[in-house]
């Protein structure tokens, strides 16, 4: 009798990549709910459409690469990318915008680099940045906070464009970050006092709060580590409070930076993407901190009010270097810092 030969270890833990990804998707649900509450069905439609597109594309390209389709789809990574894109892209984005973003995320940013695990850039952010540069008009039209559009109208906007719906102007609005960017010499206090800013801020705070809740859930489940989010939020808070301290009427407070835009989404759902970020714990601290600073710098001095995608992509580039220089000291070895 010859028994099979299997190498150790003969047991393994319960973690599964597909499940981890699914948990991350689940953790976005509070934010999706709140975004739907404040900005209408736009993001919901985005997410569903993007998911369908992503799964179709992923299946097709896996097929083309002659890999088992179901096995690879089961890692749920394409689904997660789609969900993040759907949440990040403006509500009521035209369907073709979604298509281009998903296509560049799944096909170009991921599979052309060799598939999951080999992509140097965060796929969702590649998709986002690409459409942001190519279609600035569509990308800076965010739904007015508190909008009330029927599902039918929402779908019509998505598939037929804004112009087919009456009274379009009242339904899209500049985001708080846009307003800050274009406020000119107006002091911040006055800006905040304005009703449109007030409403926008309220919505943004709620949504960011929802992301933070979802993110904390992931932290508790140990699906993501605290290093990158904490480092990013800390560095963003620090640098914004320095500027705020210098001129509180010109620069918005830390609170505003932390709770508007894609800050919380980025901190918990984007920069924690394991594939494209730094891997060691120390590396994650550097990586997160650098993103926090970049976000502030681009928001304040750059020409785009939303800085997450560019900051993340920039630091994706730097991740291998960070990893190289933050190798942990192996057991029994001298510290490698001065080696």
């Amino acid at each position, binding site marked *: 009798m010859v028994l099979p030969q299997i190498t150790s270890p003969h047991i393994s*833990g319960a*973690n599964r990549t*597909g*499940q981890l990804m699914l948990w991350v998707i689940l953790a976005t649900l509070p934010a999706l709910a709140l975004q739907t509450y404040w900005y209408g069905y736009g993001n919901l439609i985005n997410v569903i459409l993007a998911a369908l597109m992503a799964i179709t594309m992923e299946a097709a390209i896996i097929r083309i690469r002659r890999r088992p389709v179901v096995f690879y789809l089961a*890692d749920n990574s394409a689904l997660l990318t789609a969900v993040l894109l759907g949440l990040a892209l403006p509500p009521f984005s035209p369907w073709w915008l979604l298509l281009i973003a998903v296509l560049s995320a799944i096909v170009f940013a991921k599979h052309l680099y060799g598939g999951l695990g080999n992509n140097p850039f965060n796929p969702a952010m590649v998709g986002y940045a690409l459409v942001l540069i190519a279609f600035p008009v569509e990308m800076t039209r965010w739904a007015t906070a508190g909008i009330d559009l029927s599902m039918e109208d929402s779908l019509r906007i998505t598939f037929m464009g804004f112009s087919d719906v009456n009274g379009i102007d009242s339904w899209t609005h500049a985001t708080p970050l846009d307003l800050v960017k274009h406020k000119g010499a107006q002091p911040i206090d006055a800006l905040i006092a304005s009703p449109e800013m007030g409403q926008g801020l309220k919505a943004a705070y709620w949504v960011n709060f929802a992301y933070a809740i979802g993110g904390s859930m992931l932290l508790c489940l140990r699906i993501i580590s605290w290093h990158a989010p904490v480092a990013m939020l800390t560095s963003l808070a620090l640098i914004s409070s320095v500027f705020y301290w210098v001129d509180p009427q010109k620069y918005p407070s830390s609170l505003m930076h932390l709770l508007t835009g894609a800050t919380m989404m980025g901190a918990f759902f984007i920069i924690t993407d394991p594939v494209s970020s730094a891997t060691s714990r120390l590396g994650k601290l550097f990586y997160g901190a650098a993103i926090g600073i970049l976000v502030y710098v681009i928001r304040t001095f750059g020409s785009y009010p939303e800085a997450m995608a560019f900051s993340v992509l920039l630091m994706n580039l730097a991740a291998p270097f960070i990893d190289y220089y933050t190798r942990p000291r192996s057991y*029994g070895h001298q510290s490698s810092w001065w080696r």
Partner: protein
Amino acid sequence: MTDIFLLQGGIHPPQHKLQSSSQPLRTLPLPSQLILPLGQHVGALATPEVAVGDLVLKGQLIASANGTISASIHAPTSGRIRAIEQRPITHPSGMSGPCIVIDTDAQERWLDITEPVDYRQRSKADLLACIHQAGITGLGGSSFPTTVKLSTEASITTLIVNAAECEPYITADDCLLRYHSAQVVDGIDIVLHLLGYPHCLIAIEDNKPEAIAALRAALQNRTDIDVVVIPTKYPSGGEKQLVQILTGQEVPHGGIPADLGILCQNVGTLGAVADAILQGYPLISRITTVTGSYVGQPGNYRVLLGTPIEHLLTATETPLDNIERLIIGGPMMGFSLQNIQAPVIKSSNCVLVPDTQELPWPDPAQDCIRCGHCEQVCPAKLLPQQLYWFAKAHEFEKARQYNLMDCIECGACAWVCPSKIPLVQYYRFAKGRSQAKLVEKYRSDHARQRFEVREQRFLQAKVDKINRRQARITTAAHQQAEKTNHSQPLSSDKLPSVNPVLQLKQLKTAVALAQTKLKKATQALSDAESMQSLSRSKLATTVAALQAGLAQAEKQFQHQQQTMGLDPEREKSLKIAAVKAQAEVRQLQRTLDDVEESGRTASTEQLATAKTLAKVARKQLDIYLQGDHKT
């Protein structure tokens, strides 16, 4: 109370210890045959001391240690030597190995054993010899001969007794402590005596309360021995990990705990030491955990070494037919055994016969998502995901730079990996390959050296021979020339076979040819060089020397060109030189051709040959130049 430090990394796999630890220690019925492999330990195979057909008594030496790093083997019971032959052994490879097979006679007749004197009265060397003769090796799984460790020169300040037993399922040490804690303490005392009474720490995981209680009872508030209860976490029982948990220090890379004044011993080993020194018993049995869903009577058994695993299974009411796999050792670091005829050996602490429900077949591996979970649990603080990428890409050198060799193969990384990548398998492969490369390089270096020395001798002989012939020819030519000078002066045009212009031409072609060949050889050598990691400078020197030789040849040639054709004597010696030169250059061409060819398909050996050939070529060029110069 001793402070303990946190184990870096580590995991909490399900324990499954109750299956076996809830049962009492039992003794296995005597099998009809015992199979004792000569290599149950790390080190040289033991040398058989018995012949087929011999009657042996229980405890009799049947194979003696072959040097220090080796261990003796004794008959676990009385019987007759059935065979000394290749049998399947208990090894991951599933190979066979030389074994002594004993047909047991169920008499259990002991060898006469004299009551040993009190060990405190005996010399250190005597005690060590006694332990060595008893064939004791590390029973925790390392199977390293115990005396090697105990006879350390370093001054030991701490003795760490490893009772952590961190692997799931295994409870052999736990059982030993519960039933024989006094014996273990005796063993500790002996080792403390040997080491000059250092402080002693007994490390035990907090999942073994009964064993802890038994130990404490046996120790009776002694102050020189501390029982340190450590949190249950895998792999706390790894030697390096235990050192870190108990002392906060790390065993330096490439070092051993003795470098820190620490010596680690497994409890089982200490029990065996006590038996050997106090009773005079050699190591002939051990406690083995037999567990897993398929085992009818799971529990701990005192098993004679050499007991076929098949017998162990039948005796524990394990149905042989539906066994799916069998693991020797624990589920984290154990290996799957292919043949159940293989015996229990000194290091077999556990036989695990699981069903597919408790130990499912491995899942297919998905892509690595760089989640870093593996890194967080690695007790050696390596970067498992990086090592995996390197191993996968066959970048073994890189993997070594990332301290692959410090991996203890604990499997914690593979356990947590959400993509179910068999990481340890990759590391073993990479370690094996990079080790093989080193060994190969060492071997080829060695072979090359030997070859070069031989070739050098050979060459020297040849050179001498040529020199002698040269000398003879020159003298003969001189005599001839003198003779002819005296009788009848020769003019150049009367020498039909010596056409200086033609000679010059031939020499010119020869030099040109040699030049091209040399160029090719240089190219070939540099090709070969880049293929192999041989000493670059050495080869470069050879090529440079060849080039220098050639330059000299050219100079000589020009010199000849200027001075030739006038002096008849000179012409004559030139003729000799030319013939010689042509022959040498032909040979040079041949050898350089070889160099070129072997450079293309360069294996290390071929490269060595090529190098030597290049050397021969250079020598020949020298000879040619020398001969030429002499004229």
